[in-house]
Structures are given as structure tokens and as C-alpha cells.
């Protein structure tokens, strides 16, 4: 049976898909790929269904051994990559023979890369999804980050659309920082956000990015009634230090929301590493639709 083995795990490698939808009313976070665009691109290069699970690689990548003949593709952050010590490229379908070893080397831009295999990573679904939520140990491979020695099954091929033509375009590389388009929710708070550049602090992870800069003045204090919040929401706690909510964020929160990053730009947010700069630009809800359609078209799906 097709499988791969983790030889070295890298900093944080988890199984992800397009998220665990349908249970936010029960407090279950959506999780899933932080850069949905690169996850889908890697899958599309193999004719995989976009919902098939990939491995999300973070900052420092793994060494992986393919136990049998496997077609794979990598998209997202740029790394020096080798297969059996020969350099290989991202954004391409590559064939690995049995025993071939994929190694992630130096990271050159972006924060997260997606390793897709033909047939998808086959771990049990939990509440309809293979996405890993590490805090609660839900989904993925045993609900956790991958470790040396982990063996993962690869799904049976088929039911894919075949390789999409024209060739999908990789996401604009994120090197050093990004401008994120966001829909304002609180005009007074958002105006202050727009006016400055922030830095992604080291206290940033899949739950959210704590941003250095500001502080944003007149952030509401006191007990606020919890409301449901989406990924991409920019919260302003009483300290005035913004928090950009990412995929593993809790479904509800009690902090003021200044604005929400548009779906089209969540992949850019997913490519930010600690130390990178962030700027926010106003985008109306109406302007967000063509931005998303542009991404879909670049994927070859539009």
C-alpha cells in the first residue's frame, strides 16, 4: 500500500485540508491550510480533488521517504528542495521512485509550503475533515504535528479532474512582508490600523498572529459579549496590540474587531513568518468578490 515515512519532521508539519466546516456552532475551529491557494495549487498539479489532504510545512521543512512509486507536488513558500539529493522545483508534478527521499533545505521566501501526493494523504476524517487541530488533538495524524518515524498512508488515485490546463499560477511570493486587503468593521479602529506598518511577533502561530506596532488607541476595555469571529479577523484587545486570527482560532471571541482580511488575501497572510511586516488596506465587500475570482481564475478554476 502506498505510504510515506517522516525521516525528519521539520519545525511544524501537519496534515491539512480545506478545513472542518459545519461544526462552528459546537465550538469546533475550522483549521485547514493557512494558504488555501497553494494547497489547492499543489493538488491541482496532480489532478487531485481540492479537498484532498496535503502536508503543511512550516518554516523548516521535513525529510520524507516515499515507500512506493508516488507522484507529488509542492507549492507555497520557496525552499531549496532535493529528491535523492538532486534539486527539484516547486509548482511541478514530480515522480518519486520507491525509497526516494525528499529533503527540504534552505527557506528562501514565504512561511508555509504544501506537499501534495496523488491520491491525497489518507488519515481518518474527524467530523468530516482531515485537518489537524493540535490544541484539541483532532484530526490529522493522531491529532498532532508529525514526528520522526511516522508512517502516513496515501489514498487511492482516481476521481480527480486530471491536470488542469492552463497551468495554474503560483501565488505572488511573500518575501519580508505583505499588504493585506481587509473589510473595515469598526471605522474608527480601522483608520488607525491602515495608517501604519506592523510586525509579526514571535508569539504567532496557527491560532493567530500577535502584531507589534501601534498601539491602537481607544480600544474597548471591559467585558465584551462574545461573538462569532471568522479567520482573518483583526482583533483589538484592551492593550491595543492587534491580533490577526488565523485558521486554528477559537470560533468566538470577546475583543473588538477592526476589520477582516478578505478571503483572496488569506493565502498571503498564511505566508507571513515572525519578523515580517504587515500593512492593511481598505477593501469594500463589493471589491472583495473580483479579488477572489482573480485567484480562482489563476488556479485555473475560474
Amino acid at each position: 500500500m502506498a505510504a510515506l515515512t517522516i525521516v525528519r519532521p521539520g519545525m511544524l508539519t501537519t496534515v491539512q485540508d480545506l478545513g472542518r466546516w459545519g461544526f462552528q456552532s459546537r465550538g469546533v475551529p475550522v483549521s485547514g491550510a493557512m494558504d488555501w491557494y497553494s494547497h489547492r495549487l499543489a493538488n491541482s498539479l496532480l489532478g487531485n480533488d481540492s479537498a484532498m489532504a496535503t502536508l503543511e510545512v512550516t518554516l523548516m521543512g521535513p525529510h520524507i521517504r516515499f515507500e512506493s512509486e508516488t507522484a507529488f507536488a509542492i507549492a507555497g513558500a520557496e525552499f531549496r528542495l532535493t529528491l535523492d539529493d538532486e534539486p527539484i522545483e516547486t509548482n511541478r508534478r514530480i515522480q518519486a521512485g520507491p525509497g526516494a527521499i525528499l529533503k527540504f533545505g534552505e527557506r528562501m521566501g514565504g512561511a508555509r509550503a504544501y506537499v501534495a501526493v496523488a491520491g491525497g494523504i489518507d488519515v481518518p476524517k474527524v467530523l468530516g475533515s482531515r485537518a489537524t487541530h493540535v490544541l484539541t488533538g483532532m484530526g490529522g495524524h493522531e491529532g498532532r504535528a508529525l514526528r520522526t518515524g511516522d508512517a502516513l498512508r496515501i489514498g487511492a488515485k482516481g476521481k480527480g479532474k486530471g491536470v488542469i490546463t492552463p497551468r495554474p499560477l503560483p501565488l505572488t511570493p511573500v518575501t519580508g512582508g505583505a499588504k493585506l486587503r481587509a473589510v473595515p468593521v469598526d471605522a474608527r479602529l480601522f483608520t488607525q490600523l491602515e495608517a501604519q506598518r506592523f510586525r509579526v511577533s514571535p508569539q504567532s502561530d496557527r491560532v493567530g498572529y500577535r502584531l507589534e506596532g501601534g498601539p491602537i488607541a481607544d480600544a474597548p476595555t471591559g467585558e465584551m459579549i462574545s461573538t462569532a469571529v471568522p479567520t482573518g479577523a483583526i482583533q483589538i484587545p484592551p492593550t491595543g496590540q492587534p491580533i490577526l486570527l488565523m485558521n486554528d482560532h477559537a470560533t468566538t471571541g470577546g475583543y473588538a474587531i477592526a476589520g477582516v482580511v478578505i478571503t483572496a488575501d488569506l493565502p498571503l497572510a498564511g505566508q507571513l513568518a515572525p519578523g515580517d511586516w504587515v500593512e492593511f488596506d481598505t477593501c469594500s465587500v463589493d471589491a472583495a468578490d473580483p479579488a477572489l475570482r482573480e485567484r480562482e481564475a489563476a488556479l485555473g478554476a475560474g
Partner: protein
Amino acid sequence: MTGRVVYLGDSCAAVQFARTIDPAVNARCIALASRVERRGVPGVRDVVATYNAVTVHFNPMLIDRRTLEAELDSAARQAASVMEREGRTVEIPVRYGGEDGPDLTAVAAFARCAEQEVVRRHTSATYRVYMMGFLPGFAYMGSVDSRIAMPRLETPRLRVASGSVGIAGEQTGIYPFDSPGGWRIVGRTSIKLFDPSRPDPFLLQAGDRVTFVAV
């Protein structure tokens, strides 16, 4: 009851009602959320009722905002005439105080009464599950007797044990997992609020009623 639609980004719409915690408003939110879910609108991915709002997460490539708003409007009119479903009452056994309730002493001091009296007041009420959030299976319940409604910790604990029963102002809740937490922990239950091996993994949902029993 008409709500105001606020877009939180391009894939999330919140229908907001009052600005307070009110059982009647919450009941309408739960009814509306239930109605929207049951319509099975293509493109709608999640419907979340909170204290005083209903939030709809949707795929903007599959449903446009005008259609979504029309669906919400239709659902709101249907929900207005629906009686709140008879929620279940779930009884939760709790070991109060000691190592299981490290904040029981502080709550007793706040309430200026004996620890046993805090337990009596906490177990005398039937609580409403207003909403689920924070963690899978975490229920925000209210309202706690004002005499023991102590505000949350200024600095959250790094780790609160799974099953811990807490108070934060007029809210009470149970931590379904080990997690950081800022609520005042008065006791602990062995009941699992989230168990993926059960046919319905979630013990509680919005609209249920909960009572606590000291064991």
C-alpha cells in the same frame, strides 16, 4: 424582530440583535440559526448562534450576498412564529472545592459566605446554554447568582484541567479540554463534554438547560 446585517469580511455575515444578554433575544437567535441551517442553503458553511447574534459563514463563490440576505430574511420571518424547542435539561455531577476547585475559597470570600453556601447557590439554579464557543464542546451558560458572580482572573492560568467548572461574572462554563483559562474554577466533573466516539460527540448545544449537582 429584525436584525442588522454586518459583514465581517467577504465570507461572514452577522445578523445582530440587541446589545445585551437576554434569554428571549437568545432564544430568537437560536431559532433563526436553526431555521437557516435547516434550509440547507448552498454555499452556507456554518451558522453560529451567539448571545445576541446569528453569524453565517459562507462561500462567496457559491452564494451572492443578495441571495444570502433574502434567505436570512425569509428564515427570520419563519423563525418569528416558531416556539423555542423544548431543550433538554442535562445534570452535571461536580466535585466542588479542594484540588478540583482551586478558586472556591476566593469566590466564597468575594460572596462573603461559606464555601458550602457558594456550592448551594451554584447548584440551585437551572442554567441556559446561550452559545457554544472558545473550544469544541464549551458551553457559555447563565445566569449565575449575582452574589457569587465573581469576575474572571486578571491573568489567565496557563493550564486549566479538562472538566473544570468555572465562573466568570454571570457566566458559568465547563472546560472540555486542558487549556489556558481565566474563569474562576470552583469544581470539576468527570463527564466528557466532547467525545468523538459517541454518535453525537457533543453533550451540549445552544438552547439546552444545565443543572449542577454536588457529589
